[in-house]
C-alpha cells in the first residue's frame, strides 16, 4: 500500500475496548525479567566464539608513527592482533559506517587503532593494554565555539540545512518587540543500557563469502546494506540478527566499529568473534549528540503575534563526516510568522563521530526555542500558553500545506488544567522552606515519518498466527504492539500470535528509530493481515462486506468459519507492504504535546530538584496505553537529564571526552524523578498510516527540558542559556543579580 490517500474506515476503528490500545503487559516481559531473552552478546547460536577488544587512539589528531603489537601478540590466549597493516581489504564507506583501521591518520580520540582477539575476554582486554602506539601528535581542533566562524553549510542530506521565507531582516528590524538570544547545549551521550555488542561469524564456502552478525542494531536492513558496502559483500550475503536490544536511542541506528572489526576478525580467524564496547569506549568509539550553539531571534507585534522567526544552529562532527544536528528544523513548522529563517552550520572537528540521538534536532532545538518563547512571553507580559496560542498556524507555515492533525492547543489546555497552571506565581515569588519554587511549560513537536516496510503473516494449521519481519524491539514494546495489531485484525488473542522479528532473513522492515518504527512496521503488518483476511474470505467463500474476524472465527452474514479450519493442513500465508505516498507531501505530519514542570531550587546551594512533571501528548491512535506511557515518561526523563545534568565535557587541549563513564556523566537517578505522568489525548490520524497512529518515541523528549528550564526561571528569575542548568550556573546567576542590585543602590 502506498499512503496516497487518507485510509478511511478500518477494522481497528470503532472498538474502544479492542485489543489495539489495551495496556497489556509486554509479551516478551517474562523472557526479559527471567534472563532468557538472549541479547546479541549472549546468543549461543554461534559456537565457540573468540573474544575481541577494541584498542583506541589516545590522541585526537596526528599520525601513528609506529604501532608495537609484539607484546600483545605474545600475551596468553591471543589469536589475532589486527592493525592498519594487517586488516583485510574493505569496501566503501556507507552513510556513517566507515571502514576501520584505515591507515595511520588519527582524526579523533578513541578512533580504533587495533583489534585484539583472544580465547577469553580477560585475555583480549589484557593484551589490548599491551599495544603501544607512538604518535606524531598534532594539536586538535576540538572547540565548537572556536570553530564557529569557519563552520560551513553542510551537504544537504534528507534535510536541507537552510530555509528562508519572506524578509526576516526587515521584519525583525521593524518588530515592536524583539528577542535575540544565544543558547548552547552540550555533547550528550545515549547511555543506553546495553552497550554495542556483536558476535560475527564469517563463512567462506563454495557459494562465496557470507557473514552473520548477532548485533545490537536498531535498523537491520539499513545495517545490512552499509555493512555489505564496508565489508565488500553483497547485501544478501550479510545477515543481521537482533532479537532483543537493550535500548538504542539512536546509538544503534547504524553499525558501529565493533561490528565491522568482529566481522573482519572472524574472516581472518574463520571462527566467530564476539565483542562488546566497554562503557568508557561507548563515549569515544560509538557516536554521541553534538554540542550546539543556537541563535534565536524573534520579532513580535505588541499583541504577541510573531512577525519574524530566525533559528540558527552550529554543530560538529568528526573529520570526513557530514552529520549535522538539525536543531532548527522543528522551528520551520511550529509557529506562525510571515518572515522566517533557519540555518545550520557544521564544523568538522577532531571529536568522535556525532550522530542521531533521540529526536535528533528537535530535542536540543526545542531546549533552546521553547525557552526563547518563554523569554518572549515574559517580555510581552503574556502567559506562555497564550503566546503559543496566538501563534498557532492554520497550516504548515513553510511547506504551506495543512497539518494532518494538530492538537497542540488542546494539549496545552488539558495540561494546564491538570497541572494547576493557574497556581503558577510571578517570577521568583514562590517559596517553600529552603526551596524557591517555580513552574514552567513548553510545547513539544516531532516529525511523524513513514518508512517503507514489509511483513509476512502465516496462519498456521493449529490456528496460531506467525508474524515475520526484520523489525526490531529496542525496549519500546514492538513485540507487543505487533501482536496486538495482528490479533485485532485477525480476531485472535495475543497468545495465539507468534511475533518473529529481528532477522534480515525476514521481510525488510523499517526498524526502530526516528519515531517511525511502530507506524511503519505496524502498517506493513496491517496490510499483510488485510491481505490474509481477503485470502481467507475467498477460501471460505464468504462475502467481504460486513465480515467480522473475532474470537478465532470469521463471520459474514449468517455464515461462519474458524480460522483453524481455514488454515487447512498447509496454513495460509500473506504478505504486506507499506510505502510513504502523497500524504507525506500533501500534509505536514507531526506528533504534538505540552510539558509542565515544577522545580525547587535550593536557595543557598543552587541545587535544582524536579518536584513534579506532566506531559500531555497526541500521537494518533495509541497502540498500547502502557508501553506508550512508559515511552513517554522515558522521553520526559531524558528531558530532565538534558535540562539539569547531562553533559559530556570535552578537553579542548586533547579532544577527548573527559567524563567518559556513568559515574561522572550524570543521567537522572530515581530520586531525580518524583511524581511524573504522561497522558494522551484521543486522536486518529488517517493521513499518517493505516493504523492512524503517529510515532511516540521522541515527541516526549522534545521540549521536556525546556519546561524544566522555564520552571527554574519562574522559581529564581535566572535565565540560564547554557545547558545543563547545574548549580554553579545558578550561583553565578545569583552573583550577577546581587551585583546588579548593588549597582542600583
Amino acid at each position: 500500500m502506498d499512503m496516497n490517500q487518507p485510509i478511511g474506515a478500518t477494522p481497528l476503528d470503532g472498538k474502544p475496548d479492542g485489543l489495539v490500545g489495551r495496556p497489556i503487559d509486554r509479551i516478551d516481559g517474562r523472557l526479559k525479567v527471567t534472563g532468557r531473552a538472549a541479547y546479541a552478546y549472549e546468543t549461543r547460536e554461534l559456537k565457540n566464539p573468540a573474544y575481541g577488544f577494541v584498542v583506541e587512539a589516545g590522541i585526537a589528531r596526528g599520525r601513528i608513527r609506529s604501532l608495537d603489537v609484539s607484546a600483545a601478540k605474545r600475551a596468553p590466549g591471543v589469536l589475532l592482533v589486527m592493525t592498519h597493516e594487517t586488516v583485510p581489504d574493505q569496501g566503501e564507506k556507507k552513510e556513517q559506517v566507515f571502514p576501520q583501521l584505515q591507515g595511520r591518520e588519527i582524526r579523533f580520540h578513541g578512533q580504533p587503532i587495533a583489534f585484539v582477539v583472544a580465547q577469553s575476554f580477560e585475555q583480549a582486554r589484557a593484551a589490548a593494554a599491551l599495544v603501544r602506539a607512538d604518535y606524531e601528535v598534532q594539536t586538535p581542533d576540538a572547540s565548537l565555539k572556536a570553530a564557529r566562524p569557519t563552520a560551513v553549510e553542510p551537504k544537504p542530506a534528507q534535510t536541507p540545512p537552510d530555509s528562508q521565507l519572506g524578509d526576516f531582516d526587515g521584519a525583525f528590524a521593524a518588530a515592536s518587540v524583539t528577542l535575540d538570544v544565544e543558547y548552547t547545549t552540550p555533547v550528550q551521550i545515549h547511555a543506553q543500557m546495553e552497550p554495542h555488542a556483536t558476535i560475527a561469524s564469517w563463512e567462506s564456502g563454495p557459494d562465496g563469502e557470507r557473514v552473520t552478525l548477532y548485533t545490537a542494531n536498531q535498523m537491520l536492513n539499513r545495517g545490512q546494506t552499509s555493512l555489505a558496502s564496508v565489508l565488500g559483500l553483497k547485501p544478501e550475503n550479510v545477515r543481521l540478527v537482533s532479537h532483543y536490544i537493550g535500548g538504542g536511542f539512536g546509538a544503534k541506528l547504524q553499525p558501529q566499529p565493533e561490528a565491522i572489526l568482529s566481522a573482519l576478525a572472524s574472516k581472518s580467524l574463520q571462527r566467530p568473534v564476539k565483542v562488546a564496547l566497554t562503557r568508557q569506549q561507548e563515549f569515544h568509539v560509538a557516536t554521541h549528540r553534538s554540542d550546539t550553539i543556537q541563535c534565536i531571534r524573534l520579532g513580535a507585534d505588541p499583541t504577541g503575534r510573531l512577525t519574524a522567526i530566525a533559528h540558527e544552529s552550529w554543530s560538529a562532527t568528526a573529520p570526513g563526516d557530514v552529520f549535522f544536528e538539525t536543531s532548527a528544523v522543528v522551528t520551520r513548522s511550529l509557529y506562525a510568522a510571515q518572515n522566517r529563517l533557519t540555518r545550520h552550520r557544521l564544523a568538522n572537528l577532531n571529536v568522535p563521530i556525532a550522530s542521531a540521538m533521540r529526536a535528533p534536532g528537535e530535542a536540543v532545538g526545542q531546549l533552546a526555542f521553547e525557552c526563547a518563547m518563554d523569554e518572549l512571553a515574559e517580555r510581552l507580559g503574556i502567559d506562555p500558553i497564550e503566546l503559543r496560542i496566538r501563534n498557532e498556524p492554520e497550516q504548515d507555515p513553510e511547506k504551506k500545506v495543512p497539518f494532518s492533525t494538530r492538537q497542540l492547543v488542546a494539549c496545552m489546555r488539558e495540561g494546564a488544567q491538570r497541572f494547576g497552571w493557574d497556581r503558577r506565581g510571578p517570577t521568583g515569588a514562590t517559596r517553600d522552606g529552603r526551596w524557591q519554587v517555580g513552574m514552567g511549560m513548553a510545547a513539544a513537536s516531532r516529525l511523524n515519518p513513514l518508512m517503507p516496510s514489509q511483513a509476512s503473516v502465516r496462519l498456521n494449521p493449529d490456528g496460531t498466527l506467525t508474524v515475520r519481519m526484520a523489525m526490531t524491539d529496542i525496549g519500546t514494546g514492538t513485540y507487543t504492539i505487533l501482536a496486538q495489531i495482528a490479533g485485532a485484525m485477525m480476531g485472535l488473542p495475543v497468545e495465539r500470535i507468534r511475533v518473529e522479528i529481528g532477522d534480515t532473513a525476514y521481510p525488510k522492515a523499517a526498524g526502530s528509530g526516528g519515531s517511525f518504527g511502530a507506524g511503519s512496521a505496524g502498517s506493513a503488518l496491517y496490510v499483510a493481515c488485510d491481505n490474509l483476511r481477503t485470502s481467507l474470505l475467498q477460501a471460505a467463500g464468504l462475502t467481504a462486506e460486513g465480515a467480522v474476524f473475532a474470537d478465532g472465527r470469521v463471520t459474514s452474514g449468517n455464515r461462519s468459519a474458524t480460522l483453524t479450519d481455514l488454515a487447512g493442513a498447509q496454513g495460509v500465508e500473506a504478505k504486506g507492504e507499506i510505502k510513504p505516498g502523497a500524504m507525506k507531501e500533501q500534509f505536514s505530519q507531526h506528533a504534538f504535546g505540552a510539558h509542565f514542570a515544577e522545580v525547587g531550587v535550593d536557595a543557598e546551594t543552587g541545587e535544582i530538584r524536579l518536584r513534579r512533571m506532566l506531559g500531555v501528548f497526541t500521537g494518533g491512535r495509541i497502540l498500547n496505553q502502557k508501553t506508550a506511557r512508559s515511552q513517554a515518561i522515558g522521553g520526559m526523563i531524558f528531558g530532565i537529564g538534558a535540562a539539569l545534568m547531562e553533559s559530556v565535557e570535552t578537553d579542548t587541549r586533547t579532544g577527548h571526552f573527559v567524563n567518559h563513564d556513568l559515574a561522572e556523566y550524570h543521567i537522572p537517578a530515581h530520586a531525580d524523578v518524583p511524581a511524573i505522568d504522561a497522558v494522551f489525548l484521543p486522536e486518529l490520524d488517517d493521513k499518517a498510516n493505516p493504523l492512524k497512529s503517529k510515532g511516540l518515541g521522541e515527541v516526549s523528549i522534545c521540549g521536556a527540558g525546556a519546561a524544566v528550564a522555564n520552571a527554574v526561571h519562574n522559581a529564581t528569575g535566572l535565565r540560564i542559556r547554557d545547558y545543563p542548568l547545574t548549580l554553579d550556573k545558578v550561583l553565578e546567576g545569583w552573583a550577577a543579580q546581587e551585583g546588579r542590585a548593588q549597582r542600583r543602590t
Partner: protein
Amino acid sequence: MKAFAYERPATVQDAARLAAERPEARFIAGGTNLLDLMKLQIETPATLIDVNRLPLAEVTDTAEGGLRIGALVRNADLAAHPRVRRDYAVLAKALLAGASGQLRNRATTAGNLLQRTRCYYFYDTTKPCNKRAPGSGCAAIGGFNRIMAVLGASEACIATNPSDMNVALRALDATIETVDPQGASRRIAIAAFHRLPGDTPQIETDLRPGELITAVTLPKPVEGVHLYRKVRDRASYAFATVSVAAIIAKGEGDRPQRATLAFGGLAHKPWRVEAAEAALVETGSADEAAERLLEGARGQGSNDFKIPLTRRTLRATVADALRA
C-alpha cells in the same frame, strides 16, 4: 585486567604477612572501587589478598563509651547500626548519602577509608597523572576540573577524596587501628591518616607497606545536632561537589555552644579547620567561620564555584542545626 594471584588468609596476622611478602599485593574486601580500577589497569596488583573472611566485621562498645567498628563492617550495616544512628548520626547520614544501596551492601569501612579519587584524568590511562604514574604530570590542571580540590592541592595533584564516610569520621575524631606484618598494632588519628598530595600524590595515607586496617574507633559521643549536608549534581548517586559533616551544640541565640565542621569535596582529604569552628562559636557568624575555613582556597577554573558554594553550604547547615 592483568592476571593476579589470589590468597585468602584465615588470620589477620597471615594477611599482613602475605602483604609484606608478596610484591605489589593489595587487600580486597568489597572490591567496589579496586575491581573497577583493575579493569582499567589503574591498579595492577600481582596478588590480591582477600580479607573478607577475617573476623573483623563486628561493631562493639568500647570501655570509654565509644564504638569500635571492625574493618569489614559493611557501609549499609554500619549506617543501620542502632548506636550509630543514635549517637553518631552524622556518620549514618554520611554513609547513606554515598553510593547506592547495592554498593553500600558491599563496601566496607576500611575500604571506604581507602577509596581512591574520582579524578577523571586519574581514570584515563591515556592521560598523564602523577597519582597513577608518578612524574607524568597532572592533566587536570588546566583541563576540566569541576570535581577537583580548592584547598590543599599542589602543583602535582588537585584530586579530591570522594568519600562521604571519611568526612563524618573526621568530624567524629575517629582513630584507625592497624596491624603490621610484624604483628605490631598502631593507632592513627583520622586527621593524620589521609595525606595531602604534595609532590607524592600517589601516597594517599599514612599506612605502611603491608599494614592492614583492623578497626575504626570512635570516641564517646559528642552532644549536639548531627547533620550531613551533601551538595551534589543529582539527587542521589553522585559524589559531593561540597559536603559538610556538622555536629553543633546549640548555645544562646544564634551562637552555637560548640561546633565541629568537616568538609568533603574540597581537598585530597577531609578538610577540617579548628579555627573556623572556634570562629563560629565566638562570633556566631557562619561567614566568619567560612573565611577561616577557606583561607588559601584557590579554584582551578571549572571548580571555582566550590568556594562560594562552601560558604553558602556552611551558612545553610549552621542555620539548619540551630533551627533543629
